[in-house]
């Protein structure tokens, strides 16, 4: 979570000044992009952690986790 947060902050630091130059609508889109990027990375990470923990502790495969939406 810390590493992913740092990656998002690094991208924000690079793109922030560009967004500031582009006005409010560009700022909104850039902010939404950061948020979307954060959601995507954290969700992928927590899904992988859950799959790995189940694999270690219960010998379950990732495919078994998908049963809830099949």
């Amino acid at each position: 979570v810390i590493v992913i947060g740092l990656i998002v902050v690094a991208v924000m630091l690079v793109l922030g000044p560009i967004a500031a130059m582009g006005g409010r609508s560009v700022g909104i889109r850039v902010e939404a992009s950061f948020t979307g990027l954060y959601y995507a990375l954290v969700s992928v990470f927590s899904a992988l952690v859950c799959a790995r923990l189940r694999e270690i502790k219960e010998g379950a495969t990732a495919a078994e986790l998908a049963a809830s939406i099949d």
Partner: protein
Amino acid sequence: MDDRRVARPSLGIGDLVRRSLKLAAAHFGFLFPIAFVPALIATVIGQYAGGQPIIDDLETPGSGLPGPAAFLAISVNIFISFNVTGVMCLAALDALLGKRHTIGEYLRQTLRHIAPIVLLGTLVYVAAGFAAILLLVPGLYVLARYLPWTPAILFENSGWAGLARAQKLTEGTGGRSLPQ
């Protein structure tokens, strides 16, 4: 030395971070729009709630409380963010397995558990916030200990038992779901 001691398989957090980044990059075109569109909606609501930028309405003068527009915007943002997290976890699992479901199916599964997701999620973040007041580390420990609560609720239909399930899954990892 006790030879009977069984070595616990490593969680491999570094490897999980690398795999997360690789997976997100490989499926960027699938995952990012699912997160971006609601994030854009939430940002626009936040910016224009009540016909004015939210920052102007953050406090009702004299009361120290958020104004109604800001309160509504914050509530909508929390609801959207927990929904997006749920949908994204399901989409990430599909990306991992090379499968595809419709966004409607992800959303239905998330909405089926939306009450525990929102309430338990809020509880985790409030607890982590309070723990972080003491020192930063306890807050991070709380977040690490309950990290898989959303997947536990959604993947296993564990509902209100999601936090207990996450706690059980991370038991004995010593907070190793934080990168070390």
